[in-house]
Structures are given as C-alpha cells and as structure tokens.
C-alpha cells in the first residue's frame, strides 16, 4: 500500500533523529496517564512507537484514500446552499469522516478530552502528510489549533462541552479574525462583542476570508471595549454555528478549492467569552497564530513534496533529443535544488516545532509544580524564556522560508514539465495554484519577516548557530562548519550596520535580506548536525553552502551599502500611479 509517511526518507530520518523520546517525556508528564487511560503509553519507547504507528496509519490514509480525491475536489470545490449551509466537496467530506474514524482530529489534545496527546513535532509531520495528499483538506484538518486554544485558555465548562466532540471530529472549528478593513492589521477589527443586562455575550458584524467559516465552533475576535481602539480592546468569543450566523458568500479562489473560504455575518449571534476580556488579540490570537504559522509551513512542505515527486518522475521518463530530460544540466540543477530547498525548509520547520514542544514542556513542568527545588524552578524559567525567544524567531522564519520555498518548488515543477506541467492533465498546476496562498495567509511573508527580524537583529540567530556548531564535527565536515562560522560573522556585521542607521525604516527595508542570511545559516547548522549521522545530508549540506553562502555575501554587500533608493526615490523607481478611466 502506498504510504506518504514511510515513502518519505527525509521525514523518516528526522523522525528518528529529532529525539521524539524526549518529547514523549515532556508530553506524558512522567507517564502517569498510563494508569488512567489504557491507550496511554507506559514509557518513552511505547510513546514513540505510538507516534510512528499514528503517522504510518495517516500516511496510508493520505496516500490511498485522500490523494486520489484531490483532483476532483479541486474541480468541484464547495457549495453554498440556498439555506446558508455549506456542503464540502465529496472528497473532503469523505476524508474528514475517515480522519475522525482514525481518531486524528484531536491530535494534540489531552487524553481526557479524547485526544492523542502528541507533541507539536508529530502533529507538524501529520500536517505535511495530509497536505501532500490534498492541500485544501489540511486547511480543515490543520484547524486543530482552535481546540488547542480552547484547551489552553477557556474555562473548564467550555472545554468539557466542546473538546471531546472536536477530538471526535464531530465538530470542526474556524479562527474568525479577518474583516474587510482588518487584514494584516488586526488591531483594526470592528466586529462588536457586547453583553446584555444578564451578562450574555453577542457578536455583531461581518468577517471575511474565513477558512472553514462554515465550521461549528467559531473563535471570533471582537471589540468588546468600544472605547479602546487598538488591540487591547479586543476579546476572543466562541460563537456556535446557528441561525444568527449567516454565511453570505464563498470566495472563488486561485487554489485550495476544497477549503471553504467564507464571508460571515454575525447577526447578534450568541457568544461565550474565552478566557479574559482584552486578551483576545494580544495573548490568545497570537498563540493561535503561532501554531497556525507552523501549520502553514507544514502545508507548504506537503504541497512542495507532492509537486516535486511528479516533476522528478516526469524528468526521469520524458525523453527529448534521444535521452531523458533529467540528464540535461539545467534540469539537473533545477531538480537538485528543489529537493535541497524542500529539505532545508523541512529541517527548519520541524526544528521550530520541536522548540515549541520544549518551551511548552518547561512551562508545563513549572505549572504542574514539577520543579524539585527553587534552583530547578529558576532553570526551568530560564529555559522557557530562552525557547520563547527562539520560537519568536523560528516560527515566523519557518513560515516565511517554507511558504516561499513552496512557491519556488511548485513553479520549478511546472518548469521541469514544460507544456505538460501547464496542462490540467497533471497535478503540478494545482500544486502551483495551491502554493500561492501559503505566503499570504496566517500573516503575509512581509509580516513574517517583520516578526523574525527582531530575533535576527537581537542576535538570537547567531547564538542559535553558535550553539548548533558547538559540537565538534568530524574532520571531513570541519571546513564546512568553518564556512558557517564565517557566514555568521557577516550576519553580525550586517546587523550592526543596520542598527547603526537608527530608526526602524532601514531595518524594515533590509528585513528580508537579514532574515534570508539567518535562514541560510540556521539551516546550514541544522544540515551539519544531520550530516554527522547521515551521509546523504553531507551532499545536501555541501550544495546548500555552495549556493547560499554567495547569496549571503551578496545580501551582506547590499545591506552594508546603505542604499535606500526604494524609500528616497520611490516615485522615480515605481513610476506614476496608473490612471484608471
């Protein structure tokens, strides 16, 4: 049977290499759940075996049942019915049923709510596997962050009411943030949350571009404090699908046709407050968004993997000028770099997911009073702070890196296949269309850079690279480690130059280049770590350094030139605004 987990050597390698046993230790709180739940693991080996089995089962489901429906789903899309309900494409409906039967809709939820209590890393792998089968399905499957947010911040009554049904796949969720005038700028949200005399909450107003807005459990960002106009006036409300929630329109999109993108009118819909007032955007949505960003990075990996495989196969069998087209140098380079690009984004994304698990572990241990003494408690606090800082950089960095990679690889796949790639007979055109959204939603590429550059400019990237390089590599890899070290110095210089310019404008202008430099180095350091135990990765690392170190030097040169013509001479460069009749 085809299997999208077992057929992927890179995922297999990372699963083994990334110490899932440590994550199991974090998730299982001393393996105490085994007493209470007969499916909970008794030790780390048991837990890791579970993770593997779960991914194997998902891998088979994705390859055998989901992938074959993706083309039809792309063709049919979803339907907005006259009564305001939405019908999923048959392939999506079938897949959701199977995923629910497989117990996979509560992937990270605690056992007590029917979840699998899996670490974020394993969930991230699952998101990639689902996306490879059908990117659009991942938009619904990957919304498990809604349940996570309820679990993290809602009161016990709400958790008990919603989480078991969400874990069972009986209800799906949506994060309801965007409005016509509040896209990237969520502080401008206008939808009103108000309380009647008895203290009941209601939501009023219009949201748009809501993925799976037809779901049953809607987490709505609403202004509950009309007198506060910024993000501190916003709270998170839970609204259940009902007669006062009206889907007015389904968007007609370039890609991910199986994912229903809804415009919703909340007609004083009954609501419940999640957590505390005013923390909606600044705490809850930020947390939700961080999880979702890693989710989109994983989705990007899945789309790219799917596109790559079609192109790789095609280049091997397609003959021109009497030989397979994969023999031509131009295609050899294109195909090789597509694969290296995928592995780079995967290394970074999985590492980010791993660090999220470690941060969560430290916080959780503190919360449960697991620290043996004040010294351990201080150490845990320091660890959680350190990983929080790291994740603040790695999460947007991996979303940026993976989604941009996804577009490049999908585009490259079409290029490899030429005219055939442009035709609907092959899936790469779908992957190319699907890829385009990944750099836009859950925060555009430009916003990810704004978030990631903070960490880069404060030295987080450099210290991470230093840390990853601490272990002395075997002799044959030592010169490569040296290249990474010199690259790291160039990044430090570039950061110092930018800081010396004062203000934030130059930082914003050079943000992408700074983050790119950091991505090249962090990925190189991760590849080096992989190369110590995996021969294939040595070649991948050599190729990565061969193409990325020159780009790093180029970025260093551009940044330290101090040139800011796009700011000072925008009119001259961009030309006049076109006049429309």
């Amino acid at each position, binding site marked *: 049977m085809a299997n999208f987990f077992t057929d992927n050597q890179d995922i297999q390698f990372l699963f083994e290499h990334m110490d899932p046993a440590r994550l199991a230790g974090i998730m299982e709180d001393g393996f105490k759940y085994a007493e209470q739940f007969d499916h909970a693991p008794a030790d780390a080996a048991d837990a890791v075996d*579970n993770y593997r*089995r779960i991914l194997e089962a998902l891998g088979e489901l994705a390859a055998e049942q989901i992938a074959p429906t993706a083309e039809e789903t792309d063709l049919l899309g979803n339907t907005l019915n006259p009564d305001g309900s939405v019908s999923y494409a048959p392939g999506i409906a079938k897949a959701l049923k199977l995923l629910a039967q497989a117990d996979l809709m509560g992937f990270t939820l605690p056992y007590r709510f029917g979840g699998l209590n899996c670490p974020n890393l394993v969930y991230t792998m699952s998101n990639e596997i689902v996306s490879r089968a059908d990117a659009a399905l991942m938009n619904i499957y990957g919304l498990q962050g809604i349940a996570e947010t309820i679990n993290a911040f809602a009161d016990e009554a709400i958790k008990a009411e919603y989480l078991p049904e969400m874990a069972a796949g009986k209800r799906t969720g949506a994060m309801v943030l965007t409005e016509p005038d509040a896209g990237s700028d969520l502080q401008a949200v206008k939808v009103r949350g108000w309380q009647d005399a008895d203290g009941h909450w209601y939501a009023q107003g219009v949201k748009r571009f809501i993925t799976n807005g037809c779901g049953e459990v809607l987490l709505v960002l609403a202004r509950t404090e009309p007198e506060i106009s910024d993000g501190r006036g916003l709270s998170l409300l839970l609204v259940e699908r009902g007669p006062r929630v009206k889907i007015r329109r389904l968007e007609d999109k370039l890609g991910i046709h199986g994912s229903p993108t809804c415009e919703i009118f909340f007609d004083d819909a009954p609501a419940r407050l999640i957590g505390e007032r005013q923390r909606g955007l600044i705490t809850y949505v930020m947390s939700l968004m961080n999880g979702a960003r890693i989710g989109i990075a994983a989705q990007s990996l899945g789309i790219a993997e799917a596109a790559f495989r079609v192109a790789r196969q095609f280049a091997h069998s397609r003959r021109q000028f009497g030989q397979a087209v994969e023999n031509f140098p131009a295609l050899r380079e294109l195909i090789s770099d597509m694969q290296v690009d995928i592995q780079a984004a995967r290394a970074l994304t999985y590492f980010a997911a791993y660090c999220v698990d470690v941060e969560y572990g430290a916080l959780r241990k503190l919360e449960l009073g697991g620290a043996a003494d004040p010294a351990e408690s201080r150490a845990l606090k320091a660890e959680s702070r350190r990983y929080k800082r790291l994740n603040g950089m790695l999460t947007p960095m991996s979303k940026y890196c993976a989604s941009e990679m996804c577009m490049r690889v999908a585009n490259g796949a079409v290029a490899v296949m030429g005219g055939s790639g442009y035709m609907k007979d092959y899936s790469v055109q779908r992957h190319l269309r699907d890829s385009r959204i990944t750099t836009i939603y859950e925060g555009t590429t430009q916003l990810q850079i704004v978030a990631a550059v903070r960490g880069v400019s404060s030295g987080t990237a450099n210290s991470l690279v230093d840390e990853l390089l601490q272990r002395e590599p075997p002799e044959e890899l030592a010169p490569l480690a040296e290249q990474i070290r010199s690259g790291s110095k160039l990044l430090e210089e570039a950061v110092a130059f930018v800081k010396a310019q004062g203000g934030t404008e130059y930082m914003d202008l050079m943000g992408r280049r700074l983050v790119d430099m950091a991505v090249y180095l962090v990925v190189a350091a991760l590849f080096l770590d992989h190369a110590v135990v995996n021969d294939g990765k040595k070649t991948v690392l050599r190729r990565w350094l061969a193409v990325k170190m020159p780009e790093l030097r180029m970025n260093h040169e551009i940044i330290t030139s101090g040139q800011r013509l796009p700011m000072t001479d925008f009119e001259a460069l961009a030309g006049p605004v076109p006049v429309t009749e």
Partner: protein
Amino acid sequence: MGYDCIVCAKQVPDTKRITGEAMKEDGTVNRAALPAIFNPEDRNALEAALGVRDAHGGTVTLISMGPPSAAEVLREGLFRGVDRAILLTDRRAAVSDTHATSYILSCAIRRLPHDIVFCGRQAIDGDTAQVGPQLAEKLGITQITYLEEPAVLEGRTIRARRNVGSGFELVQADLPVLVTVMESANTPRPPAARRMMKYKKARTAGEVARELGQETGEAAAAAEVERRCQVLAEKGLLIETWDLGTIEADLAWCGRLGSPTKVHRVQWVKLAGGEYREFPATDEGVRELVTELIEEHTFG
C-alpha cells in the same frame, strides 16, 4: 435491536508486490517473499459488519484461520473496532482447500451467536471465491454473494444489492445469512489511533510464549506464559486461540485429508509484450477492432 456479526478474514501474501521470488519452483506462492496483509476484500467485509454495528448496535467478532502469524490480522481488526478476535490455528488444518477450510470455519461459527456472517468475496492469493458460499452451505444458512453496496436491515430481514457482472440484483432474505462483500461495497475505515495504542499490545498465547522465549533464551515455562496471559486477559488484550479440538471438528474433514482438491499441474505463463496490430482510424477499422475484441473475449 443489535445484530451479532461474524467476520472471516484471511492473512494473504500481498500479490500487488510481486517480485522475482514470488513463486516457488513448484509453482506455489512463496509466502516468505511477500509481505503478509489483511486480505483486501475481507477489509470490506469487516467494514460492512462494523457499519451494521454502528447503525444498529450488536457485536462484531473477527475470526482468522491460519498460521500463528495471522494474529496480526486480528490486531488490525481490533484497531478498527471489533469486539472479539479469535485465531483459529492448528497444524492439522494445514493445506486445507476451500472445502476443508469452510468446514473448519463452520465448526467455529456454530459455537458463536451469528445473525450475519461476512466474508470477503475472494482472497487475492487463491481467488477462488468459494469459501464464503461453501461456508453458508455448511452452516445451512442463506447466502448473498457479491454485495456491492451497504445492505439494509429491518428486523430479521436483510435487503442487499448483488453485483451480477452485467448488472445487479436486489435480493431480500431472512436472517441468519452469510454475505460475501466486494471492494465497491464500502470504504474500509482506517485503524483508530486510540485503539491502536491500546491493542498493539494484544497477543495470542502462542505469541506470549514466543516473546517470553526470546527474552529468556530458553523454552518458555508454561506457568509464566499462563500468568502473562492472565494479565493480558484482565486488560482485554488476550486474543483467543482456538484449535480443531476447541471447535470439535472431525479431523477426517480437515487438512489434507479433508481436501478433495488435488493440484494436477501448475503451468507457467509468461506474459510477453511487444506484439500489436494497427487498425486504421476509419469506420471499417473500428468495426474490425471491435469484432476482434469480442472474438477474443476481451469484451462481452
């Protein structure tokens, strides 16, 4: 009201993964060279039974007759939701043909409450499609073969759609019945993760003895095997093992003795590509092509 469903499943070599060593010199299947899997249409039979239980309640019991390794098929059944799993294994049942196999299965099923017995239409190793019908005969119950969509149950009546090759038949019967299920009848559910996390630890007594032997490096002590089985049984993790004694089968009807099938000769067929005929894209050409396809029984 609920229905007691029995599902018969066979562990088969995965004939989709044929390699050079797939066939032995004597022309029989080299089981060691191919991965052993849950016979595909038996998965559909299992899904049909689980579907009946989902809709009406009742029980699903999975039986697999085969070597001790067939325990894997039973664990897969447990992952997907069966209430009870029974391994039917006995050296004396080896080389049973469909006649002996159906007899042995009938002895086992007589000992279990059964409203509906589900079998896959056929197994991918033998492709006989005989065991289901023969089993119904031996149980003396109605058979509905080639089920192609979920059956409808109302009280003690089943209504089902049979695929008859060039069309379908809608049939109705009183319970108990035996149904053989085709791939098109349903989509088998995947293993449920939580059940998999639990039942991956399910074992037959034979497996317990073998694992104990591997741990200690010597033959397992019966008392320790029994103790471990007891622990498993308390957790619902002991897969029952039945042998020909358990089901009081008549040995004359089992194994080689009970199998009238004698393989006379195995013929090697080499499929060679390369030959083709071209037909012109004219009405006459198409007519000629269709005529030839019909004559060679490719069509119709």
